[in-house]
């Protein structure tokens, strides 16, 4: 039940504060040896140096803030080494002497950070996380370090954990530290400690902990005393239950998230195709334009108001809607309006428009994927049950889809404009007779439909690749959802998206992604045979 952070480099700020506090003064033999080893090329000495430094820090022989500063710098390319030179730290505010952390002159000779490979990185990451608990107990950096340690608790240095638990500032983390300690205690030779650890671990169910217990079970084999054996059996059974629950939750969440994507992609089409009868093959490109508009907002904010950059997704909502709606209106006014009496031609015309839009965007912006900054509040996720992680970007997509659905319903059912749209849908000529201009309503409906697609592009940009051809991935699915749900019915679209999303994620782990898609499509074909006008068809103009 702990939050993890995406970028471990967040410690740097804390480090700066600590370093300037003058945490350390002298150059000790331990420091010299550590730095010498950390500057080596090979892996072994560096890992060894980290372990020794941590143990010394836990024993109080080394200043924790120095340990943290060095390890954090080493893993983020801050530690610079050179031949026969004193190692230096390159921090944001300038160079420092690595041993004393005192400000230093920039090096004259060429110095560079030693390359960090995966094994060294794991060791440095763990070391930095552990020392954060001692260097800044109770702080946000310590909490984030705790998250790192919890990923591989069996690799933690138990002396540091013990020392961290003893610090009163770490009181808020005592529970989590206990769990980590328990993981380490599994290897204990004392049966009582081991049983306590097993019970403790069972409280924190995850696949990894289950594996740890299974390993222990295999290791002990027949040698285990009955109490330990029972404790193990119970713990594994308990974890199994949670894991099963987590798996169900995870599937439901994946299904919801996939459904929200499908729904967003088809909502605009539900208006344009479902209500207006325009077979809009350019719908996918409206989604793409929405994503590009979002990108434009992001870049504009980056240039004008970097402080607001984190909120670009929210700021872009009206802009993406309006830009896409504008493009949609232009398309309607220039091409589609000539074709209401010949819907066949809308299919061809919108196909041509989609080709045109893709290639225009490609010519202007290039073919590469656009880079979207992930706002801090959308990065990562929260572990809820066992291995079930709620990822924030998907949650955003789900909530956004729900909000847009409610808004679209309100507009259609509670406003005068919505009434006009429905009137024109029900009976175009009659609506015309009572003074509603079908032409204007067409323009506005088409604008709303394309604007909704633009919002889909916005919602998809944190999840999917954004490039000129992204729209083509959605068009078949979108048509399937709208037709399955029944044209002219937003509820139908919602239910169809939910159904397809859920069925898809249930089948996918069993038979693979392709089979899932095939089965879903065949199901849709079958459903249309039974209900040729979709699941929830309403009578409209046709």
């Amino acid at each position, binding site marked *: 039940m702990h939050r993890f952070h995406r970028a471990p480099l967040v410690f740097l700020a804390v480090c700066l504060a600590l370093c300037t506090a003058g945490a350390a003064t002298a150059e000790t033999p331990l420091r010299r040896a550590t730095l010498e080893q950390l500057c080596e090329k090979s892996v072994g000495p560096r890992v060894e140096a980290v372990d020794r430094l941590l143990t010394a820090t836990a024993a109080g022989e080394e200043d924790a803030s120095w340990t943290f500063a060095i390890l954090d710098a080493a893993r983020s390319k801050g530690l610079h080494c050179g031949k026969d030179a004193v190692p230096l730290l390159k921090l944001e505010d300038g160079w420092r002497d690595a041993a004393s952390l005192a400000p230093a002159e920039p090096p004259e000779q060429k110095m560079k950070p030693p390359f960090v490979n995966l094994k060294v990185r794991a060791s440095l990451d763990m070391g930095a996380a552990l020392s954060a608990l001692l260097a800044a107990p109770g702080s946000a950096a310590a909490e984030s370090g705790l998250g790192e340690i919890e990923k591989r608790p069996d690799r933690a240095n138990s002396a540091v954990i013990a020392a961290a638990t003893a610090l009163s500032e770490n009181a808020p983390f005592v529970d989590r530290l206990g769990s980590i300690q328990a993981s380490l205690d599994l290897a204990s030779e004392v049966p009582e400690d081991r049983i306590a650890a097993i019970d403790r671990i069972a409280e924190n169910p995850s696949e990894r902990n289950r594996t740890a217990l299974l390993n222990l079970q295999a290791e002990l084999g027949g040698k285990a005393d009955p109490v330990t054996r029972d404790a193990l059996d119970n713990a594994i059974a308990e974890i199994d239950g949670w894991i099963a629950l987590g798996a169900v939750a995870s599937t439901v969440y994946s299904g919801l998230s996939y459904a929200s994507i499908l729904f967003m992609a088809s909502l605009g089409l539900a208006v344009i195709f479902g209500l207006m*009868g325009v*077979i809009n*093959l350019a719908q996918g490109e409206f989604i793409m334009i929405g994503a590009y508009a979002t990108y434009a907002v992001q870049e504009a904010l980056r240039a004008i108001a970097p402080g607001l950059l984190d909120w670009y997704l929210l700021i872009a909502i009206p802009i993406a809607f309006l830009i896409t709606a504008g493009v949609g209106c232009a398309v309607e006014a220039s*091409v589609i309006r*000539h*074709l*209401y*009496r*010949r*819907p*066949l*031609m809308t*299919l*061809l*015309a919108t*196909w*041509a*428009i989609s*080709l*045109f839009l*893709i*290639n225009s965007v490609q*010519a202007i912006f290039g073919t590469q994927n656009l880079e979207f900054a992930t706002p801090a509040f959308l990065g990562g996720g929260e572990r809820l049950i066992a291995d079930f992680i709620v990822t924030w970007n998907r949650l955003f997509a789900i909530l956004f889809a729900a909000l847009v659905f409610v808004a679209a319903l309100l507009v259609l059912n509670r406003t005068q404009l919505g009434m006009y749209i429905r009137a024109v849908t029900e009976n175009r000529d009659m609506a*015309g007779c009572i*003074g509603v*201009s079908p*032409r204007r309503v067409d323009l506005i409906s088409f604008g709303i439909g394309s604007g909704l697609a633009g919002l889909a592009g916005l919602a998809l940009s944190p999840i999917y690749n954004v490039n000129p051809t992204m729209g*083509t991935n959605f068009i*078949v699915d979108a*048509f*399937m959802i709208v*037709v399955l749900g029944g044209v002219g019915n937003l509820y139908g679209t919602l239910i169809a998206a939910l159904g397809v999303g859920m069925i898809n994620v249930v089948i996918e782990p069993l038979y693979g992604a*392709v089979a899932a*898609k*095939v089965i879903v*499509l*065949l199901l*849709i*074909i079958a459903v*249309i*045979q*039974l209900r*040729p*006008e*979709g699941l929830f068809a309403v009578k409209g*103009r*046709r």
Partner: protein
Amino acid sequence: MFDQLFSPPGSATRPAPPVAPLALLLAFLGLASILSGWTGIGPSPYFLNLIGQVAAFGMLAISLDLIWGYAGVLSLGHGLYFAIGGYLIAMHMVKVSYLLTSTPPDFMLFMGWDELPGYYAGLEWFPYTLLLIITISALVAFIFGFISFRSRVSGVYFAIISQALVYVAMLLFFRNDTGFGGNNGMTGFTEILGQPLGERATIAGLTGASLLAAAMALAVASRVVRSRYGHMLMAIRDDEPRLRFLGYETLWLKLGVWTLSAVIAAIAGMLYVPQVGIVNPRVLSPELSIEIAVWVAIGGRGTLVGAFLGAVLITTAKFILTAIAPDLWPFILSLLVLVVVVALPNGLFGSGETLRTRISQLATRRAARQAEGART
């Protein structure tokens, strides 16, 4: 509103399309091409091959026009039947070259198979392959048509589920474990009917066969649409419920032409694949199937000749422009389609009255708009 999608764009008084001259011309060109292959005089093999491919596409367009233009059934999944023909002939050629050279096809190598799957049995025999192409395409079309037409799925719903079907087929054929070469598809063919594929004579022969087959397809299709049966089809297109009230079982009427159309598409695929030298699931992509509809619409729906010429025009332009002006081609194509759609609703080669109808339509619309303007 959707009904209009499947009703004729023009009026009922359109002149009958001049099919015979084009069919004769194609037959003549086909014979000339075969002759050119024998004698070794005439266009380069590259050019011959291009003509052959275009003719195969033209034939595909005819097959779609037959059901869309005349029976009012729009299929956005006709690539499926094209692919059936293409894949079966590819399987035939793979089998033949495997037997000849004992070099296994790529997919056997990377799937780690020692022999071809069981359904390749007998495929080295061409007549059997041909029989399979006809029966399988007919069967698939019949089954899909039967369940869809029986449950009266029509109009845009039919178009969309036909597209779903071709999409499903594409996804399945992308899988490597189905034994059709997956994404790679099948390539590396060496010979057809004992003739080496690289030779000019073979190329000319294939081109001739494609032209003759296109001529045949035109002739057959035009016989069908001019017959009493053809008039029934047009009646279905114009008002299916009325025909049903009159006591006709439209299911079987539609199924007949639907199946015929599928078989023509499959034969077009059979002719196409040896000429292009590769078949892969891209022939099953929904985009290709939409493109077929674009050819037909640009040329002129419900005219056969127009459909054929539309395919010829677009595919030729595509061949040329993807090589000499790759950046411009999509813009040219999209603008061409838009111009045709807005200004020439019956297509480039459609009814001769197109422009006049168009002008009168514009006039009516302007009047209507003025009336509307006056009201508001």
